[in-house]
């Protein structure tokens, strides 16, 4: 690079234009392997998904359209309902947990313990988590039995870990800590000076929350909702393990197509389902990132 510099300072200005251009391209070269890696192993499969989903149309409807009609429509609604509910519950409970941690924050131990465990639990999923809840709330579950001794008969009430509300409870195991981790820095970022300034200017408790605290927390709350929604929507392993592969959720339904249990001529439907998943995830994650940026801007 230093050679480029000295040469461009000696040569006539006419030569400078192409040199700058090559300099700029050359700058990106070392990053090419990285970009190539991601392109081959992430972008290419994603492109193929859309290619096949938007590809040839067998049958009366285009795959992308058929993927959201009929039984698949029900699956999408089911998935989105599940994701939305676990997201809302996760937002509410997670914020309460974060708020409680902040309130009791003078005891370093509590905060570290919960933050540490939340970091682990937020990444938990898949098989071990499903096992844990089967052991806890399944037919032969420990908690099931415990609750029975106190008069609450879960089985009698028709509760099943593999049903909607069962999955909600299981998903909350990683949704709540995820939201806690989002809200902790957000709540920390509510500087006490703002509260004092607001009081000094005449605001009572309610006005402080309405005009200062809530507006400041709102981006994080919405961002949290979107992240939790995306998180629940894309979860596969846990749902699969709980329902032994027979769930109505979209991710599990996609599996059928991959294993070849399809009516011939409809393989593209699997791709269409996957394509719709990617679209929904893109929308959620874009919203999440944009809102995080705004929240972070205020937290300098």
């Amino acid at each position, binding site marked *: 690079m230093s050679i480029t510099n000295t040469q461009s300072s000696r040569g006539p200005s006419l030569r400078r234009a192409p040199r700058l251009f090559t300099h700029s391209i050359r700058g990106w070269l070392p990053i090419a392997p990285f970009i190539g890696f991601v392109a081959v192993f992430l972008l290419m499969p994603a492109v193929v998904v859309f290619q096949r989903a938007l590809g040839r149309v067998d049958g009366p409807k285009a795959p992308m359209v058929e993927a959201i009609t009929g039984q698949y429509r029900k699956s999408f609604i089911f998935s989105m309902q599940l994701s939305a509910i676990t997201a809302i519950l996760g937002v509410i409970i997670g914020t309460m947990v974060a708020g409680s941690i902040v309130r009791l924050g003078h005891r370093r131990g509590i905060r570290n313990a919960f933050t540490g465990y939340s970091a682990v639990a937020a990444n938990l999923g898949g098989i071990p988590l499903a096992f844990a809840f089967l052991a806890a709330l399944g037919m032969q579950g420990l908690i099931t039995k415990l609750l029975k001794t106190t008069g609450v008969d879960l089985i009698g009430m028709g509760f099943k870990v593999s049903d909607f509300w069962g999955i909600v409870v299981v998903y909350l195991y990683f949704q709540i800590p995820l939201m806690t981790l989002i809200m902790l820095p957000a709540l920390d970022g509510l500087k006490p000076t703002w509260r004092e*300034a607001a009081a000094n*200017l005449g605001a009572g408790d309610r006005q402080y929350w309405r005009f200062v605290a809530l507006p400041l927390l709102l981006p994080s709350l919405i961002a949290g909702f979107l992240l939790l929604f995306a998180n629940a929507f894309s979860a596969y392993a846990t749902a699969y393990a709980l329902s032994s592969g027979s769930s109505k959720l979209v991710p599990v339904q996609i599996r059928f197509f991959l294993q070849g249990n399809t009516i011939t001529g409809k393989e593209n439907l699997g791709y269409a389902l996957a394509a719709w998943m990617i679209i929904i995830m893109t929308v959620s994650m874009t919203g999440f990132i944009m809102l995080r940026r705004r929240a972070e801007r205020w937290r300098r």
Partner: protein
Amino acid sequence: MSSELSFSGVRKTFGEVVALDTFSLEIQHGELVTLLGPSGCGKTTALRVAAGFEQADSGTVTLKGVDITAMPPNKRNMGMVFQNYSLFPHLSVSENIGFGLKIRKRSAEDRKSMVNDAIARVRLAGLADRFPHQLSGGQQQRVALARALAITPQVLLLDEPLSALDAKVRGELRDEVRRVQKETGVATLFVTHDQDEALAISDTICVMRDGAIQQVGAPRDVYLSPATPFVARFVGAMNEFAGVVAADGSLALDNAAGSLTGRNFGASGTKLTLLVRPDDVVVCAASEPGSLRATVNTVLFGGSTTVVRVTLPGGLMVGALVMSRDVTVRVDDVVGLRIDTSRGVVAE
């Protein structure tokens, strides 16, 4: 004349620590009183008690004759400028300034004109729609000042508002604060640990230490006639001459550095230290009678004035403040020192 704000015997402890000990002070309308002292001296506590963020354990705080000791902070109608900005980050400059007015349910038109007046007063025209993170430190503090004044408070409270700023900005803003304060005529309580600031802008300085008041007076008096050794040392620089009182009342300096005369220092044999300002130390010829012998150690040019540091026999370092154009000595010269002992403060 009844005061605008007054503290009467206020006492505040935090657990074992006594932050304020029978603190009594009066601030008049239009007056700028500075609480000056090192960290931990109680100045910020006093301010916060005035604002209502701390509750006094005993004593009273009165605003225009009304006892506000137990009044919650949002009812006191005081404006406060915090050390670290504290502008609401999600609101623009005009929304920040208009916040107090909005709480008081002023109409949108009223708010608009009052906010514009405030912006003009702190000279921030054109920045009304900016957000705090787009402003520099100095600009943010101006907004904070405008916000505090927009509600036409009865008292203005400033908690080390300049400490977080760069030196140059600090100077500009210091003058700005004083100008605005004089224009509006609001009684102001200013807290700082920076004595230059205090000397420059105050009508009255209240020097504090460990929760108690050491001296209250005009800047000039505090500087030229410090009431206690602490005040003398804290405000301005001080030379320290330690020694033992001789039989004739003069002070025999330690290490046989010489004798200080011109004043009766009291009972013979007493150990004491005389604090003398560099302004009151004159460098003269070594041969001059009655002067202390010293060797020039460093000559620190500081613009219009120069500090000449000399070493006395035995190692004591003394600084003398000299007008730069009168400096004739150089390092390692042997010179004489004439001390104006009558202007010194005796310390133990």
